[in-house]
């Protein structure tokens, strides 16, 4: 497959593996920010190829992992209403709230649908004028333009039975939170290629300077990641702390201004709670006044639902790279790979381009094949 196979080439991968082995002289801890990168690392066994000195810590860039309990409970409350069609990306359905997940809501008769694009949810709203259609708008800067477009389109078309439950978070404040922790072990970052495709990487320059950390904007194919690691280790070994762009075939320094314009028109920066981390100031997006009518939290009066994350949860420490999942008391007992409790290691994820790229698919579920 063109533009894919080239980046999964074995010989080229071995070249970068050898190059990393050659330059490394002491232990380094790198954090790959994005869940899509974690997915590739696990899927292709990239961590197995690295020298023992290079430790990868899997960062907070996974919207499924960082969406707080409270927001899942709000989603469940809304999805349980008989007048609602609740639309979501597939993998949010099995994220547990306080006592159930969205799959359970569906099995109890809730109309919960998997969509591949928020624009599909707008279409469903047009086709179902007697229902309220709610889209679960989770994600980082990558999904923000498509979600902004859905709200913008609904407003243009006068689709008033559409709203979004916003759970948008931003990468730079997360990096800031990781770095400002006194226990922080992370010495360099692989920044998320698709987030930077939208936002560019100017906002990472002050972070690299302030915390003296190399930040390499990195793609998602095995060669991207290996090259990103190489560039990062090289900076560390040479005592540099710059922002470099490995993913130049997708990322420009200024990002995608058209997408940024739309996002800043529909959304504004707000404080957000992160699962296991707590509230981080100016770390997420909420709807602007112009689009407030599309805010599902207000529409369904769920703003008052507040759930505290129990203190014994170590997921915040895992997300910050301070603890490993196996330091959780449930790891290996109630939490095993087969029950997906060890999801930080085993979860299956992929690059973020797709949710934006696929706008043509109606709702539906892929479960019954036989």
């Amino acid at each position, binding site marked *: *497959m063109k533009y894919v196979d080239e980046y*999964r080439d*074995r010989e080229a*991968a*071995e070249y970068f593996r050898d190059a990393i082995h050659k330059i490394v002289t002491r232990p380094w801890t790198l954090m790959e920010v994005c*869940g899509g990168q974690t997915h590739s690392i696990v*899927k*292709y*066994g*990239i961590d*197995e*190829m690295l020298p023992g000195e290079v430790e990868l810590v899997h960062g907070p860039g996974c*919207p499924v*992992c960082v969406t707080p*309990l409270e927001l899942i409970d709000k989603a469940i409350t809304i999805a349980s209403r008989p007048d609602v069609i609740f639309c979501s*990306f*597939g993998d*949010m*359905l*099995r*994220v*547990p709230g306080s006592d159930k997940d969205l*799959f359970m809501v*569906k*099995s109890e008769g809730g109309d919960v649908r*998997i969509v*591949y694009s928020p624009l599909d949810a707008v279409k469903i709203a047009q086709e179902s004028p007697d229902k309220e259609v709610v889209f679960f708008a*989770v*994600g980082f800067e990558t999904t923000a333009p498509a979600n902004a477009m859905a709200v913008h389109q609904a407003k243009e078309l006068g689709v008033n039975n559409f709203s979004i439950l916003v759970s948008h978070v931003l990468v730079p404040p997360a990096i800031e939170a990781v770095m400002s922790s006194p226990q922080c072990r992370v010495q360099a970052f692989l920044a998320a290629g698709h987030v930077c495709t939208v936002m560019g990487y100017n906002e990472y320059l002050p972070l690299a300077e302030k915390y003296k950390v190399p930040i390499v904007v990195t793609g998602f194919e*095995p*060669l991207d990641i290996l090259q990103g690691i190489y560039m990062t280790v090289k900076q560390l070994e040479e005592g540099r702390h710059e922002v470099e762009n490995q993913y130049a075939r997708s990322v420009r320094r200024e990002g995608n201004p058209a997408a940024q314009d739309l996002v800043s028109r529909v959304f504004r920066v707000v404080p957000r709670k992160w699962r*296991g981390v707590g509230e981080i100031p100016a770390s997420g997006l909420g709807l602007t006044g112009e689009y407030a009518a599309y805010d599902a939290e207000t529409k369904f009066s769920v703003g008052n639902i507040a759930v505290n*994350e*129990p203190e014994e*949860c170590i*997921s915040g420490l895992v997300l910050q790279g301070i603890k490993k999942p196996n330091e*959780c008391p*449930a790891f290996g007992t*109630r*939490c095993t*790979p*087969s*029950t*997906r*409790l060890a*999801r930080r290691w085993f979860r*299956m*994820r992929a690059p973020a381009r*797709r949710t934006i*790229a*696929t706008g*043509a*698919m*109606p709702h539906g*579920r*892929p*479960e*019954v*094949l*036989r």
Partner: protein
Amino acid sequence: MKPEMQFAPVCPIPFNEYPSIQMAHGGGGRLMHRLIEDFFVPAFQNPLLLERHDGAVFDVANARLAFSTDSYVVKPLFFPGGDIGSLAVNGTVNDLAMCGARPLYLSAGFILEEGMETEKLWRIVQSMKKAADEAGVYLVTGDTKVVDKGKGDEIYINTAGVGVVEHELAIHPKAVKPGDAVILSGDIGRHGIAIMAAREGLEFESAIESDCAPLNLIVSDLINEGIDIHCMRDLTRGGLASALIEISEVCGHQIVIDEVSIAVREDVRGACEILGFDPMYLANEGRFVLFVPEVHAERAVEIMNSRAGDAAAATAGTVTDAPQSILLKSLIGSTRIVDMFSGEQLPRIC
């Protein structure tokens, strides 16, 4: 609240215990296996059931018989490369074939929804007849029930089948031995993507057709040619990954698979890239894995390819004496453990 649930709220980790049936209980992953292990196996416990094969194999008088059943609830009813009728025949034929049996007779149970167009039923019935002729089986008994409008998806079909085992081979996951070659009968993932594309209105340059096909003729060729078959498993829900894991769990050995040798058609790969699916977990309806001694591998591949149609069988891995697990040699030359998914593959957010 069950003890397992008490931890759930503190951790962004999916539930693995549900108080009610979820779609994922039928998804071919870990949840479905737990349902079988927790409910059906203990309730019906008997030596044949505990074999955990695609069907039960037992002796009656002087004959060795295989018996299997399967239900079909596919949506949409018609899809490129097949329909619920051909699936209902081939699915049970293949389960019998995987036991090393020659399928003989099938039953068919129809659950019809009030209001279903009879023209559709006719097309399905004709398709079943055609599939049965191709596989050389007879539909010899059946049942019809009609449910209220809205209580079924037009039609559900159950088929059960009986076949005869006419050889001395002990074909079973337990017969898999270190050193065995693992042969994959063709490219994977087509049925899963064909169904998804038909359901979601995904369009490709040319339609991806399901691989739905009977496997009994290939299997009988292998047996007639004297291939020492240790085990076979057709790749249905849960795909290649789940089939290998199930076999590894029963035989207790490690299976090493080489990703480079797993054929996935270009269009199926493209669809997987867009949707975020792994072909290893996609459903198939006309593919199987075969375990034979290394010395028989080359001949087995030859035999399979002489009858395989558009499939291309190839050796894709080997069994080692390491403890049970599936090790995948990735495209870039590294390795990873292949795990069963919890419920079903879900399209990912990013």
